[in-house]
């Protein structure tokens, strides 16, 4: 739709040299604590700029430095090198102590996303308290995903960019052990033969649908 505009812009205004573009990306990323998406960079840089290439150059430039350029989902940010963490004053708020239930729920959402409350309960074998989910939502580590196309259209949960940022993950695909877990079939939503007691009882259809959507999410 905007192809036309782009062509026009490129002919009218020459994009800045790549070295300049790199400086611009550097300045923008240094200025902002939150990760910045490529499209936001495009929006803030002069017309015709190629932030993706500039990011690649910049990433190389900061390799081995005290700060690094890291990818967070679809966005990029500058972060200090983890090996220098000991130099920092830890006056920054310590990670709030998460309950075991909250940590487990978070892991299940991260590895099974998009996942419904019923599926979380099925995996943990107990009902998920409102407080647990609320806490994770409030921390900004999880959010609501698309509703499932199953009866009742249940809401799903997915992890956020902030979650990725906090744990230094480039994407949900980089979760530790994800491949192994999937290979072992432990991320399958295997329908129970007959019914299993527990509050997280889920119908076969839900589970099968969940499996489809999950593979959709991770295969890109």
């Amino acid at each position: 739709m905007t192809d036309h505009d782009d062509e026009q812009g490129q002919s009218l205004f020459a994009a800045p040299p790549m070295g300049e573009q790199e400086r611009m990306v550097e300045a923008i990323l240094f200025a902002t604590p939150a990760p910045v998406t490529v499209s936001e960079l495009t929006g803030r840089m002069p017309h015709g700029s190629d932030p993706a290439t500039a990011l690649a150059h910049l990433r190389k430039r900061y390799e081995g430095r005290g700060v690094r350029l890291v990818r967070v989902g679809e966005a990029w940010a500058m972060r200090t090198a983890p090996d220098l963490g000991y130099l920092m004053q830890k006056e920054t708020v310590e990670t709030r102590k998460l309950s075991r239930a909250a940590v487990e729920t978070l892991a299940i959402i991260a590895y099974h996303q998009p996942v419904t409350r019923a599926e979380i309960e099925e995996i943990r074998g107990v009902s998920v308290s409102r407080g647990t989910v609320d806490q994770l939502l409030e921390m900004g580590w999880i959010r609501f995903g698309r509703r499932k196309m199953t009866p009742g259209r249940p809401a799903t949960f997915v992890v956020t960019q902030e979650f990725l940022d906090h744990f230094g993950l480039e994407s949900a695909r980089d979760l530790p052990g994800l491949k192994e877990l999937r290979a072992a079939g432990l991320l399958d939503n295997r329908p129970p033969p007959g019914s299993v007691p527990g509050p997280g009882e889920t119908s076969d259809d839900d589970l099968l649908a969940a499996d489809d959507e999950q593979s959709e999410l991770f295969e890109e």
Partner: protein
Amino acid sequence: MTEELFDPNAPSDSTVAARLAAEALIIDVDGFEGPLDMLLTLSRTQKVDLRKISILQLAEQYLLFVERAKELRLELAADYLVMAAWLAFLKSRLLLPPDPEEDGPSGEELAAHLAFQLERLQAMRDAAAQLLARDQMGRDFFVRGIPEQVERVRRVRYTATLLDLMQGYARLRTKDEFRPFVLDREAVFTMEQALERMRGLIGFAGTWTDISSYLPDDFRTDAKRRRSATAATFAASLELAKEGKVEIRQSETFAPIELRRKRHD
């Protein structure tokens, strides 16, 4: 905390271990996140790979725990008892030869699924531990400490919900003046209606009469209705003339059209 209940160096005598475990469990039942969590904890006493676990043995351990709780008159939450009932059922299925009459899943299938659930829960716990062991923001790596003053430029993004959309559509479809595919007959007087009306009146038209006097009363004042009624009455007059029932005359262009009953001499 619950893991500490089980000394990894304890004698491998499973019945002793199970009894000790059951006692410890009763004391600490509040520390468990439901029956599946407790089963997972119990399964550790078997000291085997979760994939090789004996579900039968596990079921027995769990049932023993529930028995002990009953002896001590401890109240267990309902889901622990539901699980106990299910495990008792599973145990009978595993021990008794399969009933060919019965359709449901076999004991082995049920046991395999329970083993899968336990393994999956354990895997999620391990994954959670691995996650927490990663470098974390604010602990191992840090964000920019002095953010620049960033000027805010407002951009408006428009949004709507499915409800807005459906309500908008419903609003359109119920709007009174909007009926695009239903012909609005309110202002229409059809030829059939005119014919029917005139057939009843024509017997009285012995003298020349302006056809406008045949218009129904409620179609005289409103211009749209009058136009429709006039056209229909005129067409009906022609039809009646064709049938030989009336005569029509008009003295000059745009003069009133008159008709009277045709005399049959």
